[in-house]
């Protein structure tokens, strides 16, 4: 008996099947957001030793129930807070901070290590506004860190951090980490959220 050739399978409907699957995945896809502002909460147990912080080293930001900002007892717009925070952190009142470029106003913060930003809110404050303010305050820190990184290593802090997180980056990560830590020590992020 003559060997019969197997009939060819019709592939015309392959596109339809693929389309069906494609549409399924298109519909189920949600691009998850995985970015955000990292914060560390203060631990619960309050230490016995009272830490005495001079009033001039605290930058109080109060956000009331009507989403109005009170910065150092003055009403302020959201857009101005970044500049005010930079001025406060970069003041360098006691002269120990040789990389600060602030006004060295004795009534403002001593040095970036001592400067603390305290963010208070009320129960009625909207979350959106709160995040906006947090964002601006983090931006103030980043601005100073970027400036310092530019001065020391010729590139911005954000860039360096992106490189550090990038798995494909070729370079000395140990050294980069050291540099990042150094800048973080020079401008530590001391932001307290009080209830």
């Amino acid at each position: 008996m003559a060997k019969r050739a197997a009939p060819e399978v019709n592939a015309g409907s392959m596109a339809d099947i693929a389309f069906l699957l494609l549409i399924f995945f298109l519909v189920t896809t949600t691009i998850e957001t995985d970015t955000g502002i990292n914060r560390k909460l203060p631990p619960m147990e309050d230490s016995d030793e009272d830490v005495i912080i001079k009033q001039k080293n605290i930058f109080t930001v109060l956000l009331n129930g009507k989403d109005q900002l009170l910065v150092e007892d003055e009403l302020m717009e959201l857009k101005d807070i970044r500049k005010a925070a930079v001025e406060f952190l970069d003041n360098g009142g006691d002269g120990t901070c040789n990389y600060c470029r602030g006004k060295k106003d004795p009534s403002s913060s001593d040095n970036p290590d001592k400067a603390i930003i305290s963010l208070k809110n009320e129960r009625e404050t909207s979350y959106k506004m709160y995040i906006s303010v947090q964002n601006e305050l983090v931006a103030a820190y980043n601005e100073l860190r970027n400036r310092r990184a530019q001065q020391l290593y010729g590139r911005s802090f954000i860039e360096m951090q992106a490189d550090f997180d990038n798995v494909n980056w070729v370079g000395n990560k140990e050294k980069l980490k050291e540099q990042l830590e150094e800048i973080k020590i020079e401008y530590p992020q001391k932001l307290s959220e009080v209830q």
Partner: protein
Amino acid sequence: MAKFNKKKGGELPAISTASLPDIVFMLLFFFMVATVMRENTLMIKNSLPYADQVEKLDKKDLVMYIYAGKPSDAYKQYGTEARIQLNDKFAGVEDIAAFIAQERASKREELIPFLTTALKVDSEANMGLIGDIKQELRKVNALKINYTTRKGNVFDKH
């Protein structure tokens, strides 16, 4: 000379669709790879606020998600006040401690200090609820938190 007969008319030849499956498959593979299946069905409105000074959450498996916001239209019977959602159901503030304990129990012991709590809170919610959540988290010593936001300018009207 039949061999050199001109084709009749000026008709365009039909476009071959033989490569269509290949193109579709290419798209299909892209979406298959990019798809992350949602773990929780959201019962709340969850439009996150915008911020631009953001950091990436690196280890996905070391993140605990706490959602909060107004109940969405399908769950109107739960009221219009912003609520907390843990896993697939609404929860009260007092349930957070149990939730964290449960999440911790499901992870290897040495990884527990690296657990981060991501707060996915609707931008309409107010800080009272978030203050309560933060207080609960402090009680169970889950101090690393992340306010999950979308990337965008704070000053733009979204």
